[in-house]
Each structure stands twice: as structure tokens, then as C-alpha cells.
């Protein structure tokens, strides 16, 4: 039975230990003498526990999480596909996990080759000319891509370009990344299908446009009909076009951003390329560029010369934006993505996208009689349900539906995003789900809607009922923040 648990700090008992060190085999030194007063004056109040206590505590915590290994997780825009187990074995091989990033290049040729090959494969999949693996996450990739755009314009002595255009349907990270790289964000409207309004875009064109950031398929799960006209419009005005690869799971083997006119993109390896989300990270945000931006890639760049892989630094890449983090990126995540791509090959990746799109269309079809869809025709790998009518008729919000789904044994879809659809529920089934799973989920949704129509909002307010806790009081959490364990007297 799932239930709430005491914290580590309540469980702690003085004197318990969960470690054993070898006996010291060199002469001991006195900390006070060796460090001359730099020693800690007070011990940190870390828990004191035996190994069994620690293992039971964290095993207990893990049981309070819903995960892909447990069941269906149709969280739109997050691509919660199955995470293959061989990837985990790969990342833990001592030849990958027990190597130091500053070892001589000759002693890490296998690791450098893996990164070199992964970059090349990602470039081929997306139609770009080069790929850096340094960014640690999607948002970090966006920031890196925008920095390169900034450096490109600056290198041309073009300092007027301060505007980054972002559709109103975009992920929140897009405008935030533009702001943190020193750009002003300008919003462009999208139509009812989430397509960028081409005329509105044209009206924004002038010599202050640095870039357009675009998610394609867009956040309604629809491919931009005018994609070439959009990228041409920006290029004609002297700007560059950024591809947010959040939705790349829809298009592998079907279309390549490099062929659509994009100059730079990021890929979330933790979405499309199956590396686990880890409850919020670590991920990896590989960034691909066209030749115009290659000189600006972050250093070190992994190169191949005379049959040896090497790290190329600023001396060889004088226009580089520099570093965006330490070392080479989240290497352990890269090993997993490499393993995934090598396991599937080109045909397998195409099957991934085809099945992701088939599953999304199938589930959309199964739900359309109970929920208005935000798109017309076919969707790509995900779709958005409009919960506005249900809310109006029954008082049941999309959040209520989400909580009811938890009681039905599912992770809910993404709620209230994109912002352009009222009471949005964004559903992304991914390719790793069977028809039976989709059927059962659709049936659960039908039951929930039937209940809403029959009984109204009242019974929903206490949901979920099957979890260790029910809905948290978020207002108090924000107004009166308790952000760490409060030790009582005498502890």
C-alpha cells in the first residue's frame, strides 16, 4: 500500500552508519593542524542511518512515483516512450562510467569515437551539417543555438538584430531562452490550427530580426503547411531560423529540418532518442547547425585527424561562442542515445515515427466523439483536446480530468498547454504503446466524461483518491515557503 513516509531526518538515529572505509594505510594527520582553522566548526545535520534503512527509505519513495516502466504516460510534448534496458547497461560499462574527462586523448578514443559517430548520425537524421553534444538539456540547447545566432550576426558587424520571433503557441522555454541570450522576444500570432500567420510574420520583418524560433510539428501536433515560405521570409530579411526539436519524434525518416530551411536546431535526446527522464533530468540537448553557423559551435569540437579522434579548442575555432558548460556534455546520456540509434538503424527510426503518428491518430479518433480536437484532418505524433466545452457544461476542468485519470491508473496528459487552446489536454501516446493500451485509455476517458456529465464537478474535487496524498495546497506552499526540513529543538 502506498503511503506517505517519514523523512530521512525523522528516521535518523545517532550512531548509525551506512559505510565502511578501508583502514587508513598512511600516517593519520590532524585536520585542525593540516587545515589551520579551515575545518568545519559544526557537523552538518545529515541523516545517520544503516544501509538497510537507506535502501528501504528510497525504495519506499520510489513506490510513490508513477513511471513509464509501470504504465501508460501520454504526457504531451514530453515523449514518454519506453526506455530500453540495454541503454542502461551500456552507460554503466566501466569504460564509459569510470573515465576521467581530462585523461589523455589517446586513452579515451572509444568515448570520443562514440561522440563523433553520434554527432554524425544526428546530423544525417536531421539534415544538418554538424552537431554539438555539449548542452545538458533542451533549454540549454536553445540557449546555445541562440548564442550562435547572436555570434553570427555580430561577426558580420550587424548589431541591429535584437529581435527573436516566437509564435504564441511556443513552449515557454523559447521566449525565456531568447531573453537570457539578450534578445527581445516578439510574439507572432498563430491561427486556430496553431499555424504561424504568414502575413503577420511578414509584417514583422525588418533589419532588427535576428531569428524565428519554430516548433514543427507545432504544439498542436500539426506540421506547418507553409514551412518553406516561413523560413524563406526570415532568410530574406537577413535572419536565421531555429528549429525546436521537441517534436522530432514525429518526423524521423519522413522529413528533415535541414531540408526545410532551418539553420540551427536542438534535439531532446531524452525524448526522441529514448534516454530516461530520471524524474526531471539528466537529459541532453544536442544542437545541429548548417555550415553558416559551424564556426560558432561551442568548444571543444570533436574532430578526426589521421585516424585519431581529438578535442579541438578555441585556438582552432577562433569564432566559437566558447563553453556553455564543463567538459563535453552529459556523456552517459549520449551513450544511451548512441545505443538506441545503433539498435534501430534508419528503418527502425522511421518505424518509430510512423507508429508514433499512427498511435496518435488512432487515439484521437477514439476520443473525438467525446472531446473536440484542436486540429483538423490528421495529426502528427500528438494532439490537443479542447476541454472548454466540458468545463462550461459540467464545471469539470481539465485538471479534474487529469486527477480522475490518475485514479484510473494512468499518468495524465499535459494540461493547460499550449496556451492557445482553452482547457487544453495534450496527448502524446508515443510508438511504444499497443492498441489495447490505447483502447483501455480511451475507455477510461469515456467513463470520466460520462461521470462528469451525469454527476457534475462535485465528485471530482477529492480526486485523486488512490494516491498517497491528494491535491496539495499550492497556494500555502508558495506564500509560506518551507523549502527544507525544519529541525526541532535538540536535533
Amino acid at each position: 500500500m502506498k503511503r506517505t513516509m517519514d523523512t530521512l531526518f525523522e528516521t535518523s538515529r545517532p550512531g548509525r552508519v551506512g559505510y565502511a572505509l578501508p583502514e587508513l594505510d598512511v600516517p593519520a594527520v590532524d585536520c585542525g593542524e593540516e587545515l589551520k582553522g579551515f575545518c568545519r566548526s559544526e557537523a552538518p545535520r545529515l541523516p545517520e542511518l544503516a544501509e538497510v534503512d537507506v535502501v528501504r527509505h528510497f525504495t519506499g519513495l520510489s513506490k510513490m512515483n508513477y513511471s513509464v516502466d509501470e504504465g501508460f504516460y501520454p504526457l504531451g510534448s514530453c515523449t514518454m516512450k519506453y526506455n530500453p534496458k540495454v541503454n542502461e547497461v551500456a552507460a554503466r560499462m566501466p569504460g564509459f562510467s569510470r573515465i576521467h574527462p581530462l585523461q589523455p586523448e589517446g586513452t579515451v578514443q572509444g568515448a570520443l569515437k562514440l561522440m563523433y559517430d553520434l554527432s554524425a548520425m544526428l546530423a544525417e537524421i536531421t539534415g544538418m551539417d554538424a552537431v554539438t553534444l555539449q548542452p545538458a538539456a533542451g533549454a540549454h540547447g536553445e540557449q546555445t543555438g541562440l548564442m550562435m545566432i547572436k555570434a553570427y550576426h555580430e561577426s558580420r558587424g550587424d548589431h541591429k538584430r535584437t529581435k527573436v520571433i516566437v509564435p504564441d503557441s511556443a513552449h515557454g522555454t523559447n521566449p525565456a531562452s531568447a531573453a537570457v541570450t539578450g534578445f527581445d522576444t516578439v510574439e507572432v500570432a498563430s491561427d486556430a490550427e496553431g499555424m504561424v500567420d504568414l502575413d503577420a510574420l511578414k509584417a514583422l520583418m525588418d533589419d532588427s530580426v535576428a531569428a524565428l524560433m519554430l516548433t514543427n510539428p507545432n504544439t498542436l501536433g500539426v506540421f506547418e503547411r507553409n514551412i518553406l515560405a516561413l523560413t524563406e521570409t526570415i532568410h530574406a530579411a537577413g535572419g536565421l531560423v531555429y528549429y525546436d526539436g521537441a517534436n522530432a519524434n514525429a518526423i524521423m525518416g519522413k522529413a528533415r529540418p535541414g531540408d526545410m530551411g532551418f539553420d540551427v536546431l536542438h534535439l531532446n535526446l531524452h525524448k526522441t532518442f529514448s534516454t530516461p527522464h530520471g524524474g526531471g533530468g539528466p537529459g541532453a540537448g544536442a544542437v545541429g547547425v548548417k555550415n553558416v553557423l559551424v564556426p560558432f559551435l561551442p568548444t571543444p569540437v570533436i574532430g578526426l585527424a589521421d585516424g585519431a579522434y581529438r578535442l579541438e579548442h578555441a585556438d582552432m575555432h577562433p569564432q566559437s561562442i566558447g563553453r556553455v558548460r564543463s567538459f563535453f556534455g552529459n556523456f552517459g546520456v549520449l551513450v544511451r542515445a548512441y545505443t538506441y540509434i545503433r539498435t534501430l538503424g534508419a528503418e527502425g527510426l522511421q518505424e518509430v515515427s510512423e507508429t508514433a503518428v499512427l498511435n496518435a491518430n488512432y487515439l484521437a479518433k477514439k476520443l473525438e466523439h467525446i472531446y473536440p480536437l484542436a486540429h483538423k484532418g490528421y495529426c502528427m505524433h500528438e494532439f490537443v483536446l479542447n476541454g472548454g466545452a466540458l468545463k462550461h457544461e459540467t464545471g469539470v476542468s481539465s485538471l479534474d480530468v487529469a486527477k480522475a485519470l490518475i485514479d484510473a491508473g494512468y499518468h495524465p496528459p499535459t494540461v493547460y498547454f499550449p496556451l492557445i487552446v482553452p482547457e487544453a489536454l495534450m496527448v502524446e501516446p508515443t510508438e511504444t504503446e499497443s492498441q489495447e493500451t490505447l483502447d483501455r485509455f480511451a475507455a477510461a476517458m469515456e467513463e470520466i466524461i460520462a461521470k462528469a456529465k451525469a454527476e457534475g464537478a462535485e465528485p471530482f474535487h477529492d480526486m485523486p483518491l488512490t494516491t498517497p496524498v491528494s491535491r496539495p495546497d499550492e497556494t500555502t506552499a508558495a506564500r509560506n515557503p518551507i523549502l527544507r526540513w525544519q529541525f526541532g529543538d535538540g536535533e
Partner: protein
Amino acid sequence: MNRYIPVTDEDRRRMLGVVGAASVDDLFSGIPVQVRQKKASDLPKALSEPEMLRDLRGLSGKNLNADNAPCFLGAGVYDHFIPSAVDSIVSRGEFTTSYTPYQPEVAQGTLQAIFQYQTMVCELTGMEISNASMYDGASAAAEAAVLAASSTKKRTVLCGRNVHPQTRQTVRTYCWSRKLDYAEIPAEDGRIDRAALGKALEGGDAAALIVQSPNFFGGLENLQELGDAVHEAKGLFIVSSDLLALGTLEAPGKLGADIVVGDGQTAGNPMNFGGPAFGFIAVNKPLMRKMPGRICGQTTDGQGRRTFVLTLQAREQHIRREKATSNICSNQNLCIVAASVYLSLMGPRGLRDIGDQILAKSAYAVEQLEKTGKFRRAFPGVPSFRETALLCDEAPAELNKRLLGAGIVGGFDLSGDYPELKNGWLLAVTESRTKEEIDRMVAVAGGDAR
């Protein structure tokens, strides 16, 4: 048909029938003809699991790993021992394959783990508030600099030249992109040059000073003194450190730090060729609502039960969009779960024991090297932790080559980043190094076992 997709051809036909499409290709008809991919991607052919493992063993086998070669290399990443229970816990699918805890009722495990992690970081740093972690120590320092600039409304970031070179490079990149000025304070005898700092602080333009302790040379800075100087000039004091070291060293929060950042790799995370591990950032209450990244808080549910949630989200990108404190929207969650398990196993006593072993083994290694007559401390009299800057009689590149020939990964060659330290060599000695390994390293380094 691949093993990760549970949809058969028969299923496909049935599903297409329901959708009302003639073929899967029909579903992609929304992609304009001009941009449809004409031929399959040119990738190596797919591998079965046994073939895949053979390929991976081939690649990983080409790398010299610390199981086979004792590692005296540090410079930001360290070979500390990790108890078996750590990986056992972080291998659990419930931690590995869950998403960001946006639905708190089905993510209390992750949320409580974050809350406990935040508490441990506060305890170790001596600060009031920690977030749920950052990408790494370098980007955490860069975000701290940006936070300081926004909080003080000043535009110059000062950074010690004895801060990790990669941290400095990252801070510099972020400053350039945020249109902040960046300047470095030289080191004198390995530590921040007080006179140069005083000069840089004149005029009061500095938003912040970033120092690292233990610094890149392993040396310990007089934090209180440096903090006082920065505060007098109305700037913020950013201290970079690492979690394991803080089990032994005084908490920066007690020495005037306004923001404490650093790497957490040392607490329960493998070296992983430099990532993933995590960065931490901790502040005091006045900066709470400007802190970047996720923060977990405690509240109650409708029945009064203790409940954890992500909170203070008004700072974050999905609410604030272009006005957000930062664009970060993830944390290195699995890595902080690893750190929490590690710190729970170690407890205060374990960290202190490890610290004592590091001090003893470092002292022994340095003393033995000095006895060869070919090494001397670059900064005698400056106390250090885990790493010591030495000056050698020969070029470190040559020295490291000889060590490698003997199956030993030598220290970091300082001459690239610090040309003024001719033949400078940074030796890291963790608790994992045995006396036998140290003796063998000294024998080769001293030239007795050429």
C-alpha cells in the same frame, strides 16, 4: 518490426481502418511535398542486442578506466568511492523512467527526494535555501553571476583567476550573451590577490565576485576576508565549492557567502567522462524569489497530510516566459537522488572520515614526492584539500607519459592554463588511492622505476 514497438502489421491495418486512412503514408500528407524525405537516412545497419553489446564493449574497451589505472587526475572531477546501494537505488525504474513531478500526487517519491536533497545542501553549505539542482557547477556559477547582476542592478562580474578554467569560460560565455562585463582577479601565491581585488572593487561597479574554495589549485581561500571586501563594495559574494569537501571544510554560509554553487559529482556520482553529474546552488532568503531552477516545498493536502510540491513557480519559464529568472526547466534529478543516497549512507561521520583520509593520503603523497627531490609545492604554506599544485623538474606532459606507461593516470598539467606556473602539476589524491598506488606513482614520478 522492432522490439520496442508492440504494434503488429495486423494491428496497423486495423488501426488505419479506424482512422480511415489507406496507409501510414497518408497520415503524413500534411508535410508539404517539397520537404518530404526522398530516401532513407544513411545510418549504420540496425544491431541485435548481442551485436550491440559487442560494439559497446569494443568502444568502452578502448578507454582506460579507473578500475584498471589508478587516477591521480582531478581538476573538477574526482574518483571517489561509490557504495553499491547508490546505483541499486538509481537503477529503479520508478526513479529512472518518471518525468518532472508536475503531477505531485503521483510523484511524491521524486518530490520528497528533492526536498531532502535541498535540506542536505543547506546543511553542507550553511545556506538557507537550495534549489533542486543545476546542469553542473560551471553553469551554476554562471547563473549565480546573472542572478547577482539582476539583484544588484550592476553589470560587472569579477572572477578569481584560480577558479576552474572551464567555470571561467562558461561564466564568460554567459556574461557575453547577457551583455555583462567580465573581469578576472589574479592569484598571488595561489590565492586571490587581495590588493588586486581591492583595486577591482574601487568604483563599486562589481555585481559579484566569484571565488572557489578549494580553489583550482586545491588551496583554501580566506573566505570571510574576501566576502567582507566585496560586501563593502556592495557586491554579492559567490563561493564555489563541492559537496564532499564541505563535509570537512567550514560552511561558506558561515563565512559571508551570498550564493554558494559547485559540483555535486563528488557525492555519489561516477566520473562519466565529465557528465552527467549535477551542479548545486544555494542562497539566503533575500534572493529566494530570484533563484533559478526548480524548487520543492512542503505543504499539506486536503486531508492535512504532509505533501511535497514544486513551488515558487512564478519565477519559472512556463509561467513567466520571457520574464523568467532563467530558462532552465529541468534538474539533474537522478544525479541528486544518487547524491542523497550517498550522503544518507555516509552521514556526517562518513564525510568527515573520508575527509580525514584524503588529508592523510594527500599529505603522504606530497611528502613522498618532495623526498625524491624532484617536486616541490607551488604554494607552500597554503592549506589545501584533495589537490596540491606541485612544481616538477620536468615537463608535466613528459611526466604523465611516463606514468601512463606504468598504467597510472597522472595529475593535471597546469602549464596550459597557467603558463606562469612552469612545470606546474596538479595532483589529486582521493580516499580511493591506496598507499601501494601512491608508492608506485612516486617511484615512477621520482624516476626510480623508469
